[in-house]
């Protein structure tokens, strides 16, 4: 049950600093959307605004509206934890819980939310680890610490952890930037697989990756340091990479940026 996301005029602030300025985009269910753009243009900020992770930081706030299947997630009576359960997130640096085993990491979201039955947890652990293409590598050492895996395995463990709670949307913030090419390919394969079940939004610095995996691409940019980031162009990936409408996009994609 993937969901449609609609952002309209989203502006996010850190204190008085405006990091992104009126971003509007619609993300269709069961698609992969890539967000590209230079560093500091607000891709992470926008992504974190989608699952209300932005407000975790002190003084961070947001304007505009963000709806998931026509429910505004910023309505005052919305439960933040419910939003986050529905919209999972994978971070740039793998962050498995250091005190937990591989198994416990995989089902952390279920366990910490109150699921106790061992049979359910076992099943969920195997299913999510299989979905994350990690099962075969770890099935013999599920009780070992999650932090003892390699970087790529840790990231897939984090993906397993995220999809174990069966969200409808998965956000990924440069999930491959700390990984080697082989692990990166493993995660890209995984994204194709997950596309059947989830709406995926991924931030990436890797243009080839964006072109390979995504259906739609959004290009963010800033004019100069201190200005808020803007969504310059948002279109089919095919179009963005072959015939972008904006000069800026073309410059960035062809490497003539700045």
């Amino acid at each position, binding site marked *: 049950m993937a969901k449609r996301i609609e952002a309209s005029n989203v502006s996010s602030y850190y204190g008085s600093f405006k990091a992104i300025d009126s971003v509007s985009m619609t993300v269709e269910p069961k698609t992969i959307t890539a967000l590209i753009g230079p560093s500091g243009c607000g891709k992470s900020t926008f992504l974190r605004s989608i*699952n209300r*992770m932005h407000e*975790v930081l*002190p003084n961070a706030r947001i304007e505009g509206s963000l709806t998931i299947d026509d429910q505004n997630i910023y309505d005052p009576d919305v439960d933040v*934890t*419910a*939003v*986050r*359960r*529905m919209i*999972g*997130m994978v*971070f740039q*640096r793998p*962050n*498995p*819980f*250091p*005190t*937990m*085993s591989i198994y416990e990491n995989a089902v*952390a*979201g279920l366990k*910490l*939310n109150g699921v106790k039955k061992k049979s359910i947890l076992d099943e969920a652990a195997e299913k999510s680890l299989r979905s994350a293409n990690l099962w075969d590598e770890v099935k013999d050492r599920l*009780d*070992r*610490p999650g932090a*003892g895996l390699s970087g790529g395995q840790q990231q897939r463990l*984090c993906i397993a*952890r*995220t999809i174990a*709670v069966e969200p409808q949307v998965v956000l990924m913030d440069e999930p491959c930037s700390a990984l080697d090419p082989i692990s990166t390919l493993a995660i890209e394969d995984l994204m194709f697989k997950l596309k059947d079940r989830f709406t995926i939004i991924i931030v990436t610095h890797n243009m080839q990756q964006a072109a390979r995996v995504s259906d739609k691409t959004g290009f963010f940019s800033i004019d100069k340091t201190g200005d808020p980031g803007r969504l310059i162009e948002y279109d089919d990936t095919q179009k963005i990479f072959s015939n972008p409408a904006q000069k800026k996009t073309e410059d960035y994609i062809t490497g003539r940026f700045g």
Partner: protein
Amino acid sequence: MSLLDREVPGVVMTPDNIRSRTLPVAVNLGIAVGAFVVAAAIVLGAGIGNWVLVVVLGAVFYLVGLNVVAGRIEGRRAARNRAMKALIYSACVLAILPLASVVWTLVSKGVARLDGNFFGTSMNNIGARDPEGGAYHAIIGTLEQVGIATLMSVPLGVLGAIYLVEYGRGKFAGTVRFFVDVMTGIPSIVAGLFILSFWVLIVSPWFNDGQPRFSGFAAALALAVLMLPTIVRSTEEMLRLVPGPLREGSYALGVPQWKTILSVVLPTALPGIVTGVMLAVARAAGETAPVLLVAGGAAAINFDPFAGNQQSLSLFVYQQAGDASRYAPDRAWTAALTLVALVLILTVAAKLLARRNKLSR
């Protein structure tokens, strides 16, 4: 010629010379022996000191000699490296010496009364001429007082630290933090006086027909006052070390904040928190003044911490050390040894329990 070569010659070896001569171990040993012989000759010959001065002077001679000789053989940079290493090693030995000496003194003097009688009896009806008498009552007192103080201060302290790190924003949190800092510096006698005037003189009469009375519980209160700021402070530091992305990783799974703190943040910080708590426990177990002020000390066994005078190990040491009986010093030493051993055992046990996780590494 590279920039480094030009500006700091000798730092970078040229590509065709990456080998260098090293100082033979025999020469190193020779310098050490020579340094101590020269030091001994000077000190003992001139009669200006004893073996302590020989060691100190010998160490200085050794460092200087090593630097000079190694400089000749290995070059300046390598020699400086060697001298610094030797300096760090000697500083380490110097730091450990007093500790080792304390332990040695405690053990050597403490074994005299390390017998069943000491651990099985109190000082009740023990006169100045009796060689027996023990610290059973003091051990009971210390365990009860420190135990109760820990039970009170650990939950309060940890929850306070959680408030400061996870929830506290603005003026109120700043004020709390400031007072915790101030309280860290409270002298123990002041904490004792505070409990004396507040608990012993005002509150305890309500429970005792209008008569104020000493109790082990009052001592525990004073110890808790002393432990609290240490626990808050150290726990706060440990919680701050837990990386933000770990919390966010948990939030992103839809886990509420309190559950994140309980199941992700606290377990990650646990080893550090336990270390802080054990420092506070060790300090509390060694406090004498507050116990003397509000529990009063006792010669007999008193299991009830809520009624009547109680003894503690540190107070026992203090009293026996000042006692006129010729059997008292031995008791004081053994009690001191017991106190140190007790703290050691508690610390080791706590660390074992709180080992990062039960996962095999």
